[in-house]
């Protein structure tokens, strides 16, 4: 495996630091060679910036990639949105010489140049490749006895022509990683449906966004699970913060705990919920925390 730089994005470090901590603990445990990526910015958010002005989107994305090129490390993302932005920008700049040239005229002003020497990875496809679910299962020290509603999130697998991760209607790779922790990945209707946050919809049209979320939450509640697992801090924010917003606006309480995969894996590696920031979510579910304690 190539060496990696850990690209944080915005929501992980600035809203859910537990995901950052859990990711680092897991990477250390897995003996994956990674380093911080000092000075990185917003990816920038694909749903909004990419639609405002493509040149701006490419330019900010390219700067983040160049920082990693300078360290001779592949970029590791822990967010579907960051992954979508950075992997697409990286591919476009590698494939289109004119685009690379025009981007570099701007980058020159800060003494940088895009070369196209590194890859962009998402932690889920990376872990599936190496060490892989079998190996991870062997390394788990505290197998989890819980039922999980897995949410892939759209931009991990789509657009499929760009991602190349197989089926977008019924993928399995992420489920295998969840099951490597001992947890059961429970099937539920509309599992592949969008959480409703992307494309600037959550920021500008919150009520519409929450209606899409509630549809998913009701399906998940019916599946009788212990928690939701995602691989995207923006979906995480939508599921966690959105439950509070739905409670305030409509008086409906779901109270389903939300975990990023790094937090789930951290639990299976024996770390406590508070070491992984699981207790710092907005949804607080004592029953779940007690169940986790009972598990170890």
């Amino acid at each position, binding site marked *: 495996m190539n060496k990696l730089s850990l690209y944080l994005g915005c929501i992980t470090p600035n809203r859910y630091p537990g995901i950052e901590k859990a990711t680092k603990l897991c990477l250390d445990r897995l003996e994956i060679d990674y380093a911080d990526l000092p000075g990185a910015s917003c990816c920038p958010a694909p749903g909004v910036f990419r639609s405002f002005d493509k040149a701006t989107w490419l330019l900010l994305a390219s700067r983040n990639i160049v920082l990693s090129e300078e360290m001779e490390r592949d970029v590791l993302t822990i967010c579907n949105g960051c992954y979508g932005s950075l992997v697409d920008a990286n591919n476009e700049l590698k494939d289109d010489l004119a685009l690379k040239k025009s981007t570099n005229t701007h980058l020159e002003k800060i003494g940088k140049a895009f070369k196209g020497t590194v890859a962009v990875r998402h932690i889920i496809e990376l872990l599936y490749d190496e060490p892989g679910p079998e190996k991870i299962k062997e390394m788990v020290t505290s197998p989890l006895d819980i039922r999980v509603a897995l949410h892939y999130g759209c931009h991990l697998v789509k657009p499929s022509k760009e991602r190349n991760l197989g089926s977008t209607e019924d993928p399995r790779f992420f489920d295998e990683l969840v099951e490597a922790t001992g947890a059961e990945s429970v099937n539920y209707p509309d599992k592949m449906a969008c959480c409703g946050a992307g494309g600037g919809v959550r920021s500008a*049209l919150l009520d*519409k966004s929450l209606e899409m979320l509630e549809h998913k939450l009701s399906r998940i509640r019916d599946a009788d699970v212990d928690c939701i697992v995602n691989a995207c801090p923006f979906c995480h924010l939508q599921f966690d913060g959105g439950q509070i917003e739905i409670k305030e606006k409509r008086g409906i309480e779901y109270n389903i705990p939300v975990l990023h995969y790094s937090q789930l894996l951290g639990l299976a590696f024996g770390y406590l919920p508070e070491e992984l920031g699981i207790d710092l979510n907005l949804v607080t579910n004592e029953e779940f925390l007690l169940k986790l304690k009972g598990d170890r």
Partner: protein
Amino acid sequence: MNQSNKSNKSNISDALKDAGLPILTCLQCGTCSGSCPSGRYTGMITRKLVREARVSTDVLHDPDLWMCTTCYTCQERCPREIKITDAILAIRTIAVHEGIMLPEHRRVSQLVLEHGHAVPINDLVKEKRERLGMEALPETVHKYPDALLDVQTLLESCGFDKLAAIAQE
């Protein structure tokens, strides 16, 4: 926005074709609308958006344009392999360059111009970070003022500061 600018963009379909996103082969079969998570709740009709884009610039003012979560389900399922989601993003770009931007999106743009983050840190999260034994500021532009200056130089260099300001009118 001046007249010449406007007439250049009067044909959305041609602009999309130039961007490698042709939409004229649309059958109006409705697979896209049937797949749309937003359509279920917002009344957004993807098929209608595609039809509108073929015939007029009204699509630039259609509120549905901003209801797409970019989930890519329609694009995956379209029998004509029309890059619907990419086309919606490209139509949004034309709209933004015509000065049409939702106020909340303008605010997010200002956050990136000011902080280099669309979601900047706050005191509550700094506390949470410290409780986890982490530094209050992450290893991003938040911690490195020179890096933030670089980001601002780039945003100015490509005219994004002006674009976000024009849209303010």
